[in-house]
């Protein structure tokens, strides 16, 4: 408990970060998305030819694919006015925090990232705008054969390995924003865990957007070889600025036989960020992929962690906690595609809507013919705190296998006047009582987060609700 106190910021990330401080860019490509723009990015990154061609193919798809008609809020985005690549004034990823320019370093210091790294993490990759600016892996990881690299470096050093998976777990043909991502990707981390290697200390990638009218497209790829274990944490944040920025990241996970990958996201973009997050994993025989997402910040978020259960006996869970407080939208939904017998999946979606917030759950459970005895369970719980806020759930099941079992539970709750009064009678203000009840609503999933991160989430919720009904 003691350590968490010194470790953790006492305020919301966007408040800690305050307003964006100007940082210089070494390179910046802005404007219309064209073939020449993409070739320029590829050239700057000194990429192999296969990657350049992959980007260009994705560009063609982007131009062809329609804008998904369910996406609300994208009309605000004018891709032609965005900077699609911003290289900060850091030549190569630093291995020590002192090497970073002060304005950049300060952001991460304010968020307590270096302390978390020292205390908890086996490896850390930190991105600012479009490039990795800090990357450090503890020695024992390397000794055990784990590869953790900035994505670009992995592409150059391990092309054969990367090529097998990159944009194959999540093909760019899937939808327009996946295609856009693959065409413009920059930054992100690559992790490979060798056979039988089990790493219990998490590794983390942290992404920061530091300016307005920027598009960030980091690409994360985690490959867990047979029987291995890894826990990857991704965090993101942004200071406040005028206007908006756009995030269109991608996470691909490949879990080989009997491996386990745990993937945790703590999303805390500032209210200026429109956030697309494309996440998909493939689980081979006996493998397991567990997604956990705390979706706190951003203006609009679209995120649908998905697992393709390809191997017999593979399993997956996805726990998403989404908070929509204020005139913001969280559109999310987990997807589980069962392709093999004896596969299991569990989806838990918890949403909290308040102050006019909108939460949408759009999930999918698909059980293919032949996925005998597959079992899937979906649980959607919405907590709606006032009459101005809403939650919609659109669960979708597609079951083509008669021996499969799919169960679904959906509940919508409100906080009762009697509950609030009870807590007030014990000395809490109405806001504090609300935050305690909201925490109670999340209690059963908190245990799935590492202690330090659960504490961050608790604190964020405490602060968010302490201000209910206040200004802004």
């Amino acid at each position, binding site marked *: *408990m003691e350590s968490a106190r010194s470790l953790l910021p006492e305020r919301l990330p966007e408040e800690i970060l305050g307003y964006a401080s100007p940082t210089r860019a070494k390179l910046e490509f802005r404007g219309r998305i064209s073939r020449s723009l993409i070739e320029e990015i590829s050239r700057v990154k000194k990429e192999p030819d296969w990657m350049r061609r992959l980007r260009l193919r994705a560009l063609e798809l982007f131009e062809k694919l329609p804008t998904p008609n369910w996406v609300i809020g994208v009309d605000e985005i004018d891709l032609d006015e965005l900077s699609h690549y911003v290289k900060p004034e850091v030549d190569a990823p630093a291995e020590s925090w002192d090497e970073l320019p002060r304005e950049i370093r300060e952001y991460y210091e304010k968020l307590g990232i270096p302390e978390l790294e020292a205390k908890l993490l086996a490896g850390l990759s930190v991105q600012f705008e479009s490039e990795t600016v800090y990357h450090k892996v503890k020695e024992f990881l390397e000794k055990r054969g784990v590869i953790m690299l900035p994505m670009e470096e992995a592409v150059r050093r391990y092309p054969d390995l990367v090529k097998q998976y990159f944009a194959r777990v999540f093909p760019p043909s899937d939808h327009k924003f996946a295609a856009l991502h693959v065409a413009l990707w920059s930054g992100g981390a690559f992790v490979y865990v060798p056979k039988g290697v089990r790493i219990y200390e998490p590794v983390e990638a942290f992404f920061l957007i530091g300016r307005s009218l920027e598009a960030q497209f980091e690409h994360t790829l985690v490959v867990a070889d047979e029987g291995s274990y890894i826990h990857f944490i991704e965090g993101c944040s942004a200071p406040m600025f005028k206007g908006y920025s756009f995030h269109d990241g991608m996470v691909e996970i490949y879990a080989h036989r009997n491996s386990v990958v745990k993937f945790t996201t703590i999303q805390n973009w500032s209210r200026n960020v429109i956030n697309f997050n494309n996440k998909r994993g493939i689980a081979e025989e006996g493998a397991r992929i567990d997604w956990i997402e705390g979706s706190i910040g951003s203006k609009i978020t679209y995120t649908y962690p998905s697992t393709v259960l390809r191997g017999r006996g593979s399993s997956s869970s996805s726990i998403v906690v989404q908070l929509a407080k204020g005139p913001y939208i969280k559109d999310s939904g987990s997807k589980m595609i069962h392709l093999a017998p004896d596969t299991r999946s569990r989806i838990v979606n918890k949403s909290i809507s308040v102050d006019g917030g909108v939460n949408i759950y759009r999930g999918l459970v698909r059980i293919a013919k032949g996925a005998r005895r597959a079992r899937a369970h979906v649980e959607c719980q919405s907590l709606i705190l006032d009459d101005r806020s809403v939650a919609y759930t659109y669960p979708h099941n597609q079951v083509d296998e008669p021996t499969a079992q799919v169960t679904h539970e959906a509940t919508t709750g409100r906080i009762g006047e009697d509950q609030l009064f009870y807590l007030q009678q*014990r*000395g809490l203000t109405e806001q504090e009582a609300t935050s305690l*009840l909201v925490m109670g609503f999340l*209690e059963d999933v908190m245990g799935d987060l590492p202690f330090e991160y659960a504490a961050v989430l608790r604190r964020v919720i405490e602060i968010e609700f302490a201000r209910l009904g206040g200004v802004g």
Partner: protein
Amino acid sequence: MPELLEVRSLHVDVEGKRVLRGVDLTLRQGEIHAVMGPNGSGKSTLAYTIAGRPGYEVVEGDILLEGESIVDLEPEERALKGVFLGFQEPPPLPGVRLSSLVVAAVNKRMGVESLSRAADPKVFGRLVAALQRVGLTAEYAQRELHVGFSGGEKKRVEVAQALVLDPKVVILDEPDSGLDIDGVRVVASIIRDLRESGKGVLLITHYARLLQYVKPDRVTVLVDGRVAARGGPELAEEIERKGYGAVAGQAPAGTA
């Protein structure tokens, strides 16, 4: 010296309906004041109004805590000044552990901003001791509060909180209903201890059963939102024998 708690000529509307029609009552330190009355006579309404429950509109009268009016204070302000209410029917609080609530409540009393980090490391020990005192195991500290609790467990947990939070005025709204005989004895002995330690206990009950184990210093009988009778322990016995009908209407005017 002002009285610990003084209710003066209290008229209260709930949902536009007049429920209390002039209640006067005094509670001193180190005293047990029993409030009795038939169902629907306004006992819980009196308790909620003292605690400041929203929707319980004081249309006339006043409530003084140590001489100062508290009718305009928020419920949590009254709580922090030392008013505790053990609920007749506490609501379930899913996901909220008893220990989390107690940590938050104790932190508030210590003026600590965080709700979740125990500012007083002794608080867990005190909670466990209180639970044991009411006949529950330490495991109840980690239970979701009032979720799936039996009627008797609810009452015990309410009383346990009164022990941990150390209030000045302890209002217990039917702490005996739903309790088995051992529970009644335990709660009675706690109430006696609370009196010993100088607290004022406003004990709401409509059976004299509990009062066999704990002699009230005073008894006030409410009927239809009004004080129908006042007296000492003998009044409770009379009610037990003859019912409310017989005692109604013998309230000596003026003496609270």
